[in-house]
């Protein structure tokens, strides 16, 4: 019962966090899809499976938050690089502000600060 509750809760939390982390990983650079996975892999518990990232990237591209371009690679076949669009930058800024507010709020509650 407790396991199921935690499982549901962490799934819901992870879903939003993963999008935030992907957008942050792309911010300010052009990045290869596989490198996004490598960057995020270090965060424990963020992904159930690394494959989760690719459908999210596809959705973010469809919604116009990221764009892709194929570039030749000296190491092998052409690679698909991701970059944030202007809309994506704006969305990410909003998301980060929101997340910071939530985070500081939860921190203060968990530390027992009186509001």
């Amino acid at each position, binding site marked *: 019962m407790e396991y199921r509750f935690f499982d549901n809760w962490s799934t819901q939390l992870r*879903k939003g966090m993963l999008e935030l982390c992907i957008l942050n990983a792309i911010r300010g650079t052009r990045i290869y*899809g*596989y490198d996004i*996975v490598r960057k995020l892999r270090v965060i424990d518990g963020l*992904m*159930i*499976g*690394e*494959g*989760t990232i*690719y*459908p999210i*990237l*596809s*959705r973010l*591209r*469809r*919604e116009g938050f990221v764009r892709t371009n194929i570039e030749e690679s000296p190491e092998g076949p052409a*690679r*698909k690089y991701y970059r944030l669009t202007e809309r994506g930058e704006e969305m990410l800024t909003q998301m980060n502000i929101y997340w910071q507010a939530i985070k500081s709020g939860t921190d203060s509650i968990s530390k027992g600060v009186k509001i």
Partner: protein
Amino acid sequence: MIRLTDTAQQRLDKYLQQMRPCLQGCETVDADEVQRDITEHIEKELEGSAEPVSISQLDDVLRKLGSPSQWIPAEEVPRWKKATLRLRADAQNWPLAYVALGLFLLFLFSNLITIRWGILWPVRFWPLVLWSRFVWPMLLLTSFCLARAAIYKVDNLKMLGARRWLIYPPLVFFYVPLFLFILLLPGLPVFFRPLGWWKSTLVGTSPEFYSGTLYHIQRTPYLHGSELFQILIRLSIWWSVLATVLLIWPGLLRVIFRPFADRFDRKWAGILFVIAISLLIACIGPELSHRMQGKYFIRRSLLR
């Protein structure tokens, strides 16, 4: 392209095949794009590995990628897709239950079709005869056996959940006639007597009766009452025998009528025994009295 061993290649193909239906139908995701990305990811992960890449190396990569069914959040998957995926997973996990229902439906459907054809086509058409004589019973029997096998495969029927409705139809179709047969066995000859049985019985046993006299006797409550009491007596004796057998081996009924008789125990056999004995006592007295009165009544009728 990285070279894989045959088994690893087969595993990869299967993984990609499983991935496709999980991604399709989700409007927010481009399935082709994701498939390309995943293939590229696998190649990057295996880069530098000794070729041909073994299945264990590939499995490590696939395990980290996770199951494709988890990649798309549940709320983004359309309802029809969820239902299809659940049905497919169900059919893989519970193939016996699905095949049992499928065969049973085929039996019912073909039954209806054949009956309709039979009406439209009164001439004996040999494929229909073959179908009705051999295929129908086989379909029904196979469906029943598979349903029973599906029950035996699960330790607890609760595990089947709503899927139990897949196996109930063929089971009920078999169990109800069987149950009635076992319960009413001594009374069955009465139910299957042809119309007018009483007339032929009386004429047969009492050839001196004329039709006018017969008419008079048919209308007497004695004959109907006596016949009813005789049936009830036979049934009560039979039920007491059944109850005794079930008191000794209560598991017998549970095995025959699984899962519907799973709660049957000696207590129920005891109740059946009490009912049977009570019925026997209740019927013997009136029957004896009826017999004596009846004999007197018939004699008097004949004298008229």
